[in-house]
């Protein structure tokens, strides 16, 4: 099978998955306690007003009819209108997505750097202090809740030391032309150093929080797989040819260690998004994650459903991209 037909198959297989997810989220939302109408109008509104709103939102129709109405809309590419803001869900997600993307990319790069270098050097010095500290670090960070880590960093760097802001993406006094929505790039392309510095300062705490959390799993994977690869015959053969330790470690062991890492990275990416939801809420980061939490609080059904579908499609796309990269890293991979 060629790569092209593999990708097409993957996309086709994703359709029933997303459909099942949609059915589940749709019905679970309507089973759990909480009423969107009451959430909007408050408990003290007159009965007629509540009924009128319920009719306006279409929530008085039988639940099956509601579902097929919604499904029809989704298939036409319409995610509906937020019951809280009356704005189209899609445009709300689109506005907030760059913030999430910027946060996740920053965190991911940070996690990659920590994971690859610390993991590789720890594997090279197995059972030495650097390796033991890597193992303690990854267990500790993995066990710590994301929001707690975020709160502690806020407390230290935001409250006591006052070095960094504790929330938001940009100070109100700083102006910035928004083109891509990725503020770091926007400020960089417009040579707006003041804004770049401000954006970076805002990004640092949430980025480090999420980055550390992902790095713990990543560091462990890199370290363990590299230890395994260093025991392989081809590493011994490379040593016997007189190659330098750096070449053996990074060119042979780490590179091969990435083959199994890539195959599980697709799954790790879903974890990254879950972490992003908590991090964004802790740092009031205006991304899709904090959007989802807000909408859950107000039982904004279309917005919650829309966000979940969006996340699902995003995860599927990322895992397809990872599969393609995997084929490039490991020439043995055939589809």
């Amino acid at each position, binding site marked *: 099978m060629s790569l092209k037909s593999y990708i097409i198959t993957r996309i086709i297989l994703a359709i029933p998955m997303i459909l099942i997810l949609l059915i589940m989220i749709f019905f679970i939302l309507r089973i759990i306690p909480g009423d969107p109408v009451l959430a909007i109008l408050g408990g003290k509104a007159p009965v007629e007003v509540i009924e009128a709103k319920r009719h306006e939102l279409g929530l008085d129709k039988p639940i099956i009819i509601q579902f097929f109405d919604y499904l029809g809309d989704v298939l036409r590419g319409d995610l509906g209108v937020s019951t809280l803001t009356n704005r189209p869900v899609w445009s709300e997600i689109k506005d907030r997505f760059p913030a999430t993307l910027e946060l996740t990319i920053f965190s991911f790069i940070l996690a990659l750097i920590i994971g690859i270098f610390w993991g590789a050097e720890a594997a090279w010095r197995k059972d030495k202090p650097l390796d033991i500290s890597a193992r303690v670090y990854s267990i500790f960070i993995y066990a710590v809740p994301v929001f707690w880590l975020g709160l502690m960093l806020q407390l230290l760097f935001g409250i006591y030391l006052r070095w960094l802001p504790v929330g938001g993406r940009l100070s109100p006094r700083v102006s910035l032309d928004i083109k891509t929505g990725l503020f770091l790039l926007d400020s960089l392309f417009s040579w707006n150093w003041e804004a770049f510095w401000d954006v970076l300062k805002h990004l640092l705490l949430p980025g480090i929080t999420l980055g550390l959390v992902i790095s713990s799993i990543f560091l462990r994977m890199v370290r363990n797989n590299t230890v395994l690869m260093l025991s392989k015959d081809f590493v*011994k053969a490379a040593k*016997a040819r007189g*190659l330098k330790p750096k*070449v053996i470690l990074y060119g042979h062991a780490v590179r091969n260690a990435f083959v199994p890492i890539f195959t599980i990275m697709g799954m790790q990416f879903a974890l990254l998004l879950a972490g992003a939801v908590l991090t964004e809420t802790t740092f009031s980061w205006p991304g899709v994650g904090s959007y989802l939490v807000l909408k859950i609080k107000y039982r904004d059904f279309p917005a919650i459903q829309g966000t979940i579908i969006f996340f699902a499609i995003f995860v599927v796309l990322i895992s397809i991209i990872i599969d393609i990269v995997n084929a490039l890293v490991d020439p043995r991979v055939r589809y």
Partner: protein
Amino acid sequence: MIFEAKDLKIYYKTKRGFVKAVDNINLTVEKGQTVGLVGESGCGKSTFGQGILRILPPSTFYGGSMKIENQEILGLPENSMRKIRGKKIGMIFQDPMTSLNPVMKIEKLFFETLKTHEPEITEEEARDRTAKVLEKVGIEPERMREYSFQFSGGMRQRVMIALTLVLNPILVIADEPTTSLDVIVQAQIMSLLNELRKEYDMSMILITHDLGVVAEMADKICVMYAGHIVEEALSEDLYYNPKHPYTKLLIKSIPNTNINDLDLKYIPGSPPDLLKPPIGCRFAPRCPYKKEICETNEPPVVKVDNTNVKCWLYSGVEQ
């Protein structure tokens, strides 16, 4: 003299003490010579091979002396040792299926090896030399752009040989180079190795447990048992006139095709634990000719005819 090991000791450090995998070994390799190193699994022959290049785990203890072209290499720091690995002493490994990095193209393996030892080499020159050496081992040079998993086992071992020859080392250690290959490919690889050894004017240490293989190739054979060399002799002498009881039993245990003699012969017992080897002769517990002294004193090496043998049986006929 190309290579000389004197009273060489290689001990592995474990939680229960030192494993004396190689204990007081003396071995010399002359220019152009092929020395066979024979022994059963766990006798220390592979440890010896890898110990020459010092690519054993860092906690390994080395003692005695080891010289390549009269240069002492045991005390050499890592970065000087790296210049010897591959360049002066090449190594061919047992399993070609796992000794070549599966995610790297063959040419990349050659280029990085050449670049390491000859930093000023150009890409073109490296490609040229790779093509030439691949041709020598019978692989079309165009295939250097392929990955090792696209080659068969025998072809991979040819690649491995080429990868060792490309730096033109003076000594090649072949550690069971054909053990994982089928019999026909074994023969091809062995004769290729023999031809190329002559052509490149190298010396070779051939490590194997196959007496048949070593008989055709080696000028001199050393028989190893439990970390000691128990007998050192020219190939014919060893075959037709073995001295040490272990060698005798080993040669008897080679399966033959005689219809009247279908029993598979073997040496009863098993090799000793190298954490606590016997005080006297290490073969004594299994030896049918055992005397009292064998269990209490380590035998000396004595010269009988042209053979060096480490056994009490000959201590009376010392010349």
